[in-house]
């Protein structure tokens, strides 16, 4: 009778994670999730910008079929009445819930995150979301700014909190509600960070002393890069701190020391996100749901951290399109943990340091458009049929393919562990 689904999607997160081999980052909770999951090293978004990518993987259709390349149309009106992944789960008896940024807000999701089609209850948005681009940081001479680099004292923020902290609290509340009413659920939690502005609790910057922060290995604009391929990172230029640098258009560059500040804050924002994910997964344990819930962790696209002289996303480079993608499936990617044993104990990035190996790793090149059929198969639902070449008139089909058959490697690994009596490679390592 099908597992619950916890679908975590992060805004603008490239795979700078310990479980993807990044040596600098402190992401113990996401690494712990990876240690119980199959992790895809080569997962790519179909378009490296928020709304087109999210509509693509939530409907299981490519941008040429959703016909959303910008932010200004709703697929059901503009392209076709395509079913979404949450809608499909809802139609198959799941309670579907959205917290934070899952669909991109505005026209592209009908100003309602595609409610009521996709969700059983009106989606939750943190009340402090509206302050995201306000002048809330970088105080100088009594004035506040809307900076790109924006470490803050959370107690001084409007309502004394931040959007992703509120989202985690709401998601934990919903987990406990679902535990009580014992209904199958599909809970999607969308985190805003590390999307700009890089606004995060200032204490996280201590994890990344500036002297440890390097420039990107290739911070120059490649000579043979066609001018059409280059993105001039306009959104970054509009932040107060970057505006003050008078960076030339279109190729810049940002001053070296500012590049390192941006990279430092991106990493700090990733650790702040890791804490949110850690608290959410710890709550899954608390609610006794870890053995009956599939957890998916991914992002809508990556982000350039100065490579090729670029920042932000808006390109076809791997750093902008490659995303983290991992699936925790109880009994498939790990053996079931004895009742009462914790699967995702919270780990403090300020005190927990270690490398870890994922339960299973696949180097297969996969696409976010495959999320819909993959999750349908993992939950035991009928996998939607493959779309024909044109599918504007077909409400339910997918342009992705289920990638469950790539999980097999992780099963083999689990079997090996059972043989040597260690069911938990994470602890054993």
């Amino acid at each position: 009778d099908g597992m619950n689904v916890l679908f975590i999607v992060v805004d603008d997160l490239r795979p700078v994670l310990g479980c993807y081999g990044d040596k600098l980052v402190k992401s113990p909770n996401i690494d712990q999730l990876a240690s119980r999951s199959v992790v895809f090293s080569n997962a790519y978004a179909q378009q490296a910008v928020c709304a087109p990518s999210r509509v693509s993987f939530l409907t299981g259709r490519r941008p040429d079929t959703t016909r959303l390349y910008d932010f200004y149309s709703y697929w059901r009106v503009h392209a076709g009445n395509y079913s979404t992944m949450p809608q499909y789960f809802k139609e198959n008896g799941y309670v579907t819930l959205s917290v934070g940024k899952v669909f991109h807000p505005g026209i592209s999701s009908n100003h309602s995150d595609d409610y009521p089609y996709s969700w059983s209850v009106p989606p939750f948005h943190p009340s402090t979301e509206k302050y995201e681009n306000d002048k809330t940081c970088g105080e100088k001479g009594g004035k506040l700014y809307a900076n790109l680099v924006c470490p803050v004292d959370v107690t001084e923020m409007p309502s004394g909190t931040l959007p992703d902290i509120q989202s985690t609290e709401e998601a934990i509340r919903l987990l406990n509600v679902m535990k009580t009413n014992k209904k199958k659920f599909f809970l999607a939690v969308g985190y805003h960070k590390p999307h700009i502005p890089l606004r995060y609790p200032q204490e996280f910057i201590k994890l990344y002393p500036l002297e440890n922060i390097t420039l990107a290995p290739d911070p120059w604009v490649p000579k043979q890069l066609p001018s059409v391929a280059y993105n001039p990172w306009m959104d970054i230029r509009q932040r107060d701190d970057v505006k003050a640098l008078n960076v030339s258009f279109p190729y810049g560059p940002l001053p070296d020391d500012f590049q390192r500040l941006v990279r430092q804050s991106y990493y700090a924002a990733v650790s702040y996100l890791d804490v949110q994910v850690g608290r959410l997964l710890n709550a899954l344990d608390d609610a006794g749901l870890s053995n009956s819930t599939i957890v998916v962790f991914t992002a809508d696209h990556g982000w350039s951290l100065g490579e090729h002289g670029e920042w932000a996303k808006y390109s076809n480079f791997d750093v902008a399109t490659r995303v983290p993608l991992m699936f925790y499936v109880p009994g498939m990617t790990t053996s079931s943990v004895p009742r009462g044993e914790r699967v995702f104990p919270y780990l403090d990035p300020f005190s927990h340091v270690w490398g870890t190996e994922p339960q299973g790793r696949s180097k297969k090149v996969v696409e976010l458009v495959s999320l819909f059929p993959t999750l349908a198969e993992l939950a035991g639902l009928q996998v939607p049929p493959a779309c024909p070449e044109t599918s504007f008139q077909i409400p339910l089909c997918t342009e992705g393919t289920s990638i469950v058959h790539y999980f097999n490697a992780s099963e083999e690994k689990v079997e090996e562990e059972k043989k040597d009596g260690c069911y938990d490679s994470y602890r054993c390592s």
Partner: protein
Amino acid sequence: SEESVAFSQYPRPADTPQWNSDKPKLKDIRIMGYSMRTVDYRYTVWVRFYPNNFSADFEDVHAGELYMVETDPNQDYNIYNNISHGVFHKKLL
């Protein structure tokens, strides 16, 4: 062996960077960059795009990129103009 491939695309309003290059509105899109990725390479062609009927003209190639993962994992050295790329173009189509 079955080669796994990922496709991505990105729109542009013009051949050179301008103020709306990052996020062109549909009506302003003139070029679409289509990328095909495997574990070995990333091949991209920037072709003419017609927003009124959402069509892309793969005969009208404005620019191309080709990076080989083994020798250039960071995609810094575009070799599109150095080798014949017909096989990649055909594969993308």
